């Protein structure tokens, strides 16, 4: 599909893509959740990943972040093979992620954000300050001493993003950080994603709210039943017959 983009040039010098997925496959016993996916992410892009329920989107994130080992295929970050690295090592190399179902730790909001910072610099006092800064960025600073179970869903999603940001990622994988929020909350969250772009973070975001994807993404990948069925600009993708076919019976996104 986009393997050819590998030697894309900027100002004459060839630049290495940030992330390369080569023939990535993941089978759970009989079920093939991700099948032969090839894709490339360039540094600085904001890319959407959409597809019907069960298409394999979250599984793809699990493969990239290392929680699952692929059955087949290779993953390269900055041209370096990371297929066999454990999740924590990939995080230290710059892959951050959020979880579709938020997974906060049973400690205060501030301490939650301190954990990834401490994994990079073990000093709790410095980590506290750094965590406070990140909480300000996602507008959670006033909830710093709360426990996650006392937060609204929108706030817990922001905590999930804050923790991922605290890993200082080059590549951030956002798994439905807008799902379950009301339209006002979605409006409030969107600027955050633009902030990420300004920070030079490459983003791959799974999202069902297609308007949101269309408004922030440079490119959209579409998955269906484990396959990557489309890869293009938001405008191209919604007109793609295969995409329309995949969503048949559901509302065609943005069309």
């Amino acid at each position, binding site marked *: 599909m986009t393997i050819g983009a590998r030697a894309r040039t900027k100002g004459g010098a060839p630049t290495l893509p940030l992330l390369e997925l080569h023939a990535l496959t993941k089978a759970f016993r009989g079920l093939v959740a991700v099948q032969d996916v090839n894709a490339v992410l360039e540094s600085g892009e904001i890319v959407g990943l959409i597809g019907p329920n069960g298409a394999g989107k979250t599984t793809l994130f699990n493969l990239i*972040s*290392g*929680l699952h080992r692929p059955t087949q295929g290779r993953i390269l970050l900055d041209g370096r093979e990371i297929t066999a690295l*454990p*999740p*924590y090592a990939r*995080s*230290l190399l710059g892959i*951050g*992620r959020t*979880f579709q179902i938020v*997974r*906060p*730790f*049973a*400690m*205060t909001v501030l*301490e*939650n954000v*301190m*954990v*990834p910072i*401490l*994994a*990079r610099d*073990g*000093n*709790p006092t410095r*980590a506290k300050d750094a965590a406070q800064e990140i909480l300000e960025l996602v507008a959670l600073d006033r909830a710093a*001493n*709360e*426990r996650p179970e006392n937060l609204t869903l929108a706030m817990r999603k922001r905590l999930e993003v804050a*923790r*991922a940001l*605290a*890993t200082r990622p080059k590549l951030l994988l956002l798994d439905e950080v807008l799902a379950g929020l009301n339209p006002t909350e979605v409006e409030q969250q969107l600027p955050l994603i633009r902030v990420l772009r300004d920070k030079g973070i490459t983003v791959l975001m799974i999202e069902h709210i297609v308007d949101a994807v269309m408004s922030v993404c440079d490119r959209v990948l579409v998955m269906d039943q484990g396959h990557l069925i489309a890869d293009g600009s938001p405008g191209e993708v919604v007109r793609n017959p295969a995409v329309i076919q995949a969503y048949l019976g559901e509302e065609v996104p943005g069309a």
Partner: protein
Amino acid sequence: MKRQRVAAVLAGAAAVLLPVFVRSQFALDMAILTLFYVGLTAAWNLVTFSGRLSLGHAAFFGLGAYTATLLFVRAGIPPVIGAAVAVVVSLLGGLLMVLVMVRLRGPFFTLASIAFAEVLQLVATHWRSLTDGSVGLHIPFRPGWQNLTFTSKEPYYYIALALAVLSVWLGHRLYHSSTGYFLRAASSDEEACQALGVNIKRAQAAALLWSAGMTGLLGVFYAYFIYVIEPTTFFSMELFSLQPALNGIIGGVGTVWGPVLGALVMTPLGEYLRTFLGAMQQGLHFLVYGLVLLVIVRVLPGGFMSIITGVRARNDDRGSGANERGRSYTAAS
């Protein structure tokens, strides 16, 4: 904060002066045993920071006790050096348990820990040429600091106090270190923790090794305190695996001070019941002890610590008090 410091100073002074005022041998013995269990429970507790439950700490305890005793009895090596070697041997035992821990979760790790201690007990029983089997070993009575053998109880009391303080201090340091944050995070969610860049296996290994080494050191102390050592006592599941776990759970696992409280309350309670009710009707003390346990677990699922954090949270409105809240135990991974 200030009131806490005053309380700590008072408690410290009381602990140091206790043998001056308490002349009863029974009471002093009880105090020594209580401090010993404070140390043992606090050492056991380090593993629980990351949500793991060990019921096999008798393994490290027995390894420590046997190593120091064998070195003294068979080779005449003084207890101070023996204790250092004993800690190393307990750490090697800890290393074996680390290998198990990174592979097994939740109840499977707990079961494996029990098996580990049971196997060591069998080895100590059947390797007669080394350990004299179930006959056991006697530490010869040659009083003096160099032999860690004393004619009065006071020195044992102060050693037990020092070991208890060391063990609790280790827990306090670990809890507030970066490793402590990792362990507590992992007790909620190991996967999410790793996805944030935390090498959780390394953190858990560190906690288990500190725990094993400290437990081994307490084994050395106990061997010299009762100077007869044999497999069923020193690898006893009931005394050195279950009892610290029970104290810890009653006090509040996942906190630094909960298990200390647990040991401070449960040890004298258990001893009194055994001494007074045990004489009345065999088994009666078990019944009463069991009932007390049930009531505590029903009323305070988070352990004694949940009373304190509850009061503190009400006092400071919200915030800091929440940090050390106890969690009820569900043998989860």
